[in-house]
């Protein structure tokens, strides 16, 4: 598909957790905890507040339709600030400095005085009902010629445990939010820009790593479509797919719009109570419902069931809106008979609703209040189908499709955080900000100066173990051996179930030094690390290796092993070198360097072969 020709416009918003000692507005550590470690809990209601004109923000209003009673888990690493029981501390200077470093890396302009704002969020993920955020810098550049509009520092939200229960450990961890202009025009370009920004962020060496520590929101639109924000894409690999799926969705919604107009479609505002029709039904959902309401969508027949994205139909969108009222979902005639509803019941429903062939009927089953609310939501979304694509915030589903979350938030939901004083960024401060070397440049440098092959150089530069690698090189250890140990050996051990997190950085370096000093062969690195993970000291681990073997002894062993396998050697010739190498190494148990063994074997094969 030629996305440029379609007119795709996409921008991204990247949220990255910062690895600071303390949270953004309190002195709690930025540690994520296991849920069962919580040592306190409390329960609160949140409600939308009114603005000067008496209007309630539309995103907030939408949330009001749902239950707003929340439970929060507190820890010995959280405090009254997270509980919204104490005013925030001043803005964390370490986080601000880091934000400025990142801003400088993107060539941005800092704001002369940062003002912290409150952004209303009443989904429960913020105990206060708002997220604190401040604009730190604007106008950066990207390698694709696009631009970064803004860089903000904000608080991470509390993590949902389940349902209305939230865990406070994550609340308040500093986040840097980077917003690009809508400067991307193909799905792959979006993925590339996201990867680039991620690389720049990691170049600081002070961002959190691991699942959930970086999240991308993608804004996508096509001509005649609408700006749609897809929240919380956590994996880089999925970004391009998400964009492709959204373009498909918008195109299909536009096609549905055109078809509706062509068919002169309309929505019957009359809601019918069809509970009686399903008295004898086998559908468990309909059977247990107090009320079943139906509405007729003229000209929607076949369109409600039309696929707009992998696994998603217009009906799924109607259903998402209805779910805001607390119902499990909807039924529509395009998908019936199914779910225990028989063909006869469908026929009776169509008859009762006097629905024509091109019409669709939507059913909602719940208690009266919920069903009425849900029907209204279905009508609201069905009306939007005539306009094409509604502007909205969506959440990503596993396969790259997305589901409706809430309307796009307006600027209306932001007002000043009066508890935090504005922070000036002086020219002096800005000048003093040092920018780190980008990981990409570092990879090139390792390749060039340390003689690492390009792949390994890139791998180690982008690895979390980069600082340890640099320390190893500084201490005169061999770059390739260090990089291999830090990347492959540790990974292999971990795969074998060795508790590598119990091996300290200094222990890893000590092992490498032992190899460097000839105390053990590099083949023994794995065994040594394994022993260290098991709590053995390095000295004992070295002793446990085979006793040091003299050159003569080794020659004897090699000669014996080759001699015992005359047939094999005759058959394979020099090809026997590899297999025999393994046998010798096993006998000498890591106390001799592989190179020495290999040289001796080669000679012996030549002699005996």
């Amino acid at each position, binding site marked *: 598909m030629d996305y440029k020709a379609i007119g795709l416009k996409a921008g991204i918003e990247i949220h990255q957790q910062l690895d600071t000692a303390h949270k953004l507005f309190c002195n709690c550590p930025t540690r994520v905890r296991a849920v069962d470690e919580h040592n306190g809990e409390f329960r609160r209601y949140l409600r939308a507040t009114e603005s000067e*004109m008496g209007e309630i923000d539309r995103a907030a209003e939408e949330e009001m339709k749902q239950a707003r009673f929340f439970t929060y888990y507190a820890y010995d690493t959280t405090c009254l600030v997270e509980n919204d029981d104490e005013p925030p501390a001043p803005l964390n200077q370490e986080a601000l400095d880091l934000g400025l470093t990142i801003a400088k890396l993107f060539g941005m302009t800092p704001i002369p005085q940062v003002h912290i704002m409150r952004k209303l969020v009443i989904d429960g993920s913020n105990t206060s009902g708002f997220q604190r955020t401040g604009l730190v810098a604007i106008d950066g550049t990207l390698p694709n010629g696009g631009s970064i509009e803004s860089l903000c520092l904000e608080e991470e939200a509390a993590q949902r445990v389940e349902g209305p229960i939230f865990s406070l450990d994550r609340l308040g961890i500093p986040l840097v939010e980077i917003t690009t202009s809508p400067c991307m025009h193909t799905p792959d370009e979006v993925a590339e820009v996201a990867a680039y920004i991620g690389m720049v962020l990691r170049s600081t060496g002070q961002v959190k790593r691991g699942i959930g520590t970086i999240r991308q929101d993608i804004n996508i639109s096509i001509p005649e479509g609408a700006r749609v924000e897809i929240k919380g894409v956590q994996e880089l690999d999925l970004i391009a797919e998400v964009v492709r799926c959204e373009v498909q969705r918008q195109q299909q919604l536009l096609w549905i719009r055109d078809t509706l107009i062509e068919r002169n479609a309309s929505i019957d505002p009359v809601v019918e109570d069809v509970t009686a029709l399903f008295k004898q039904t086998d559908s468990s959902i309909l059977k247990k419902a107090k009320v079943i309401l139906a509405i007729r969508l003229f000209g929607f027949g076949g369109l409600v069931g039309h696929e707009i994205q992998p696994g998603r139909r217009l009906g799924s969108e109607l259903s998402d809106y209805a779910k805001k009222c607390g119902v499990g979902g909807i039924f529509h005639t395009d998908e019936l008979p199914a779910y225990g509803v028989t063909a006869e019941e469908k026929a009776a429903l169509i008859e009762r609703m006097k629905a024509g062939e091109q019409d669709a009927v939507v059913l909602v089953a719940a208690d009266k209040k919920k069903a009425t609310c849900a029907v209204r939501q279905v009508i609201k979304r069905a009306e939007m189908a005539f306009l094409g694509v509604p502007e909205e915030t969506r959440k990503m589903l596993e396969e790259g499709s997305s589901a409706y979350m809430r309307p796009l938030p307006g600027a209306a939901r932001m007002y000043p955080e009066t508890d935090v004083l504005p922070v000036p960024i002086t020219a002096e401060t800005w000048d003093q900000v040092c920018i780190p070397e980008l990981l990409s440049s570092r990879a090139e440098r390792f390749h060039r100066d340390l003689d690492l092959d390009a792949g390994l150089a890139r791998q180690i530069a982008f690895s979390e173990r980069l600082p340890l690698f640099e320390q190893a090189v500084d201490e005169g250890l061999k770059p390739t051996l260090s990089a291999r140990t830090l990347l492959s050996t540790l990974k292999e051990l971990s795969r074998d179930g060795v508790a590598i997190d119990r091996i300290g950085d200094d222990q890893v370096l000590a092992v490498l030094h032992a190899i460097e000093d000839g105390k053990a062969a590099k083949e023994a690195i794995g065994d040594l690390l394994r022993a260290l993970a098991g709590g053995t000291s390095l000295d004992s681990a070295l002793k446990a290796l085979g006793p040091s073997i003299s050159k003569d002894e080794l020659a004897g062993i090699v000669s014996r092993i080759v001699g015992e396998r005359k047939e094999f050697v005759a058959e394979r010739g020099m090809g026997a070198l590899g297999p025999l190498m393994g046998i010798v190494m096993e006998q000498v148990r890591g106390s001799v360097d592989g190179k020495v063994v290999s040289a001796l074997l080669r000679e012996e094969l030549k002699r005996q072969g």
Partner: protein
Amino acid sequence: MRVLKLDSGYNIGVPPASCQMLEPATSIEQPEQILVDQDRSLPHLSIVSTGGTIASKIDYRTGAVTSQFTAAELMRAIPGLGSIGQYRTVQLASILSENMTPSLWQELARAIYQEIKDGAEGVIVTHGTDTMAYSAAAVSFMLKTPVPVVFVGSQRSADRPSSDNLMNGLCSARAAVSDLGEVAVVMHQTSSDDFCAIHRATRVRKMHTSRRDAFQSIGSSPIGTIAYPSLEVNLTADAVRRQPIEPELADRLEERCGLLQFVPGLSPDILAAYDGYRGLVLSGTGLGHVSTTWFRQLGSMIEDGTTIVMTSQCLSGRVCDRVYDTGRDLLKIGVVEGGTLLPEVALVKLMWVLGQEKDEEKARMMMTMDLRGEAPGRSAHGL
């Protein structure tokens, strides 16, 4: 720095020199007066506001938070109020509670008295939390009430979705239509939105700078609870009930009274600052002590007609100056034992007692008597 509001909603500060006027400010239209139909079948309640921000709204464009005080505005800001009572509002003042004064306590007591005279079946006083306990105690002494007089405020500002104002507001209204017949403070009982406590005005103290449950009854239990969101009121047997009496107002206060906390090493010279005071409450150590170096000055102040009352900075527990020599000597000088009086309540009470009673001996007697539940005879509770 000039503050600029960007289209994105963010504020930023920029140097004035970099600003240029593009368009003069347009005046913001005043929102229409909202009319709210009050349910005439519900009890008559009065809301007397002193500046406590029980309800406020924000202008997202400027970020300003404004307080609202008409009955209609309050009922809009606190949905649910309208189904508990019908309201009349009196805006007595619009101050931060740290600026409260004894003369305002008097005005407050008079206003509440008038509302009750005019038929209010319950009175809600919205008040800042800093000095709410002082005001509530003061009104408690000045006013004998047949109906509930409920002080309420919020610890979190009303613009926040998490504010405690809604729950506190609804609970205070329910307390105001309940069978209570005394002055009380109604605030969160825990950090959760589950219960409000009804505290006796003379036993309550703000014990935390910021928590929702900052207000605690000291040395006694709250006199009731209100569950949320059911708003079910439970009064203890100890709570004074509504009674068919006429309200009585005794609003004279002797303002020349002080409260002084004794600390180790504090020179008795400090007492010179209270020269001419009619009363002085000491917040002493432990069972009710100050350094023996203070005795001479204290003695001469008492001789000069100052009533001196000893309370304890322990807050919890009873002053007993008969256990140690220091205490016995204080009694000999003529210091009055404050019993279980909280230091701040002792101050307010002393102002009121000295305002009522010119006879020093009688005033001293009144200070040791339990007039408004301020000095329970038994210490039923620990900390």
